[in-house]
């Protein structure tokens, strides 16, 4: 029988490493094999050296410092964790608590307001442009024929106040309101516009709001004698 197997067993001849049958087998071999018995002796010597090392106490150099270092690291860790946790909470409710998001909201509101104001300014600009364009046109008092020419020219510019969309005429409510308010001082051409709107009220939609409706325009127009005359003539 080869000794190799028993040599391996000899290195593992410690409690819990060999099975009972293996131990028995090894013991029987050792009775007959001097080489293996010699190796056993040497392994036992090694084990004694190792046992001495096992029993040698280890001292911790600067033990207090080590404890302090460990606790310091743990404290740092804990602080870092707390910061992370705070960040996490902020991420949960950022839209209402973070200054940056408040800034975004404010900007949004300001942009909307600016948009409205811009629209207003543009409309007022258009009206004054129209008024300027029409300022030179003759009035109904002087030349009724010219008035119908003025009406034609005005209709050309109508798209600046009114929008034709899908064959329907949409008139800007605000502009119309402005016109109605200044009815007394209106140039004839603008009154013609009102008349035009009146005539086409069936096609006009989406612009009159509660306070300003086609009937109101009609009433206003019918009060004006000159206008009635104009309508008859044209």
């Amino acid at each position: 029988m080869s000794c190799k197997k028993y040599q391996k067993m000899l290195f593992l001849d410690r409690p819990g490493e060999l099975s009972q049958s293996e131990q028995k087998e090894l013991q029987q071999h050792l009775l007959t094999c001097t080489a293996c018995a010699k190796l056993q002796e040497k392994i036992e010597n090694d084990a004694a050296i190792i046992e001495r090392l096992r029993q040698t106490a280890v001292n911790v150099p600067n033990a207090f410092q080590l404890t302090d270092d460990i606790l310091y690291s743990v404290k740092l860790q804990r602080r870092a964790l707390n910061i992370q946790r705070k960040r996490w909470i902020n991420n949960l409710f950022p839209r209402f608590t973070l200054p940056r998001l408040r800034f975004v909201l404010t900007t949004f509101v300001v942009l909307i307001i600016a948009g409205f104001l811009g629209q207003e300014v543009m409309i007022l600009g258009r009206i004054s442009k129209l008024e300027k364009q029409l300022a030179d046109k003759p009035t109904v008092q002087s030349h009724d024929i010219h008035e119908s020419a003025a009406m034609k020219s005005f209709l050309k510019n109508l798209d600046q106040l009114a929008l034709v969309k899908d064959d329907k005429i949409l008139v800007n409510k605000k502009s119309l309101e402005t016109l109605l308010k200044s009815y007394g001082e209106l140039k004839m051409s603008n009154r013609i516009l009102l008349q035009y709107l009146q005539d086409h009220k069936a096609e006009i939609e989406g612009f009159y709001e509660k306070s300003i409706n086609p009937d109101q325009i009609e009433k206003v127009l019918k009060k004006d004698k000159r206008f009635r005359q104009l309508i008859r003539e044209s």
Partner: protein
Amino acid sequence: MPELYDIFLRCQNGDLAAFRQVVETHQSFAFSLALRMLCDAEDARDVVQESFIKVWQNIGQFDPNRKFTTWLYKIITNLCLDYLKARKRKNRLFSSPLDSKVGNLARAEVDEEKNCMNKELIKEIKMLAEGLTPKQRIVFVLRDLQGLEMDQVVKITGLNKSKIKSNLYHARMNIRAKLEALEKEK
């Protein structure tokens, strides 16, 4: 034991004073284990520090009814294994045999100066365990230098019994060869 149970409960509630007690009680054992595995006082210190940080980080998962030292053993052993593997990789990558001898000598001198306390022990273990693979070294330290039962070694390393036996066999045979060579020198 009930006192220890209480201390761990306090740790789990974030009590640093209780944790200090845990460190003070176990750091000597932790250092001794790490030093035997790594044979380097600086590395051992680092491992002990990292181990206790891990303990703190995972203290919530620890069952105070179970044995703390087994858990600590496991953490330290795993960290030491990482250190040993890294060391092996580093040696393989960066040094020719001559360089590594010079480097080791210089390093050993520094170690000895720094840590006269465990000088003899480190020297002897270093001599015996040199050339062992990280796993052989870990198993040898746990079983022979710490005197742990086989079952405990299984629990700590996560290796099965036959793997542990195979690593032990190679480690002890390697050590035998070294001691044999020493005897012949004399």
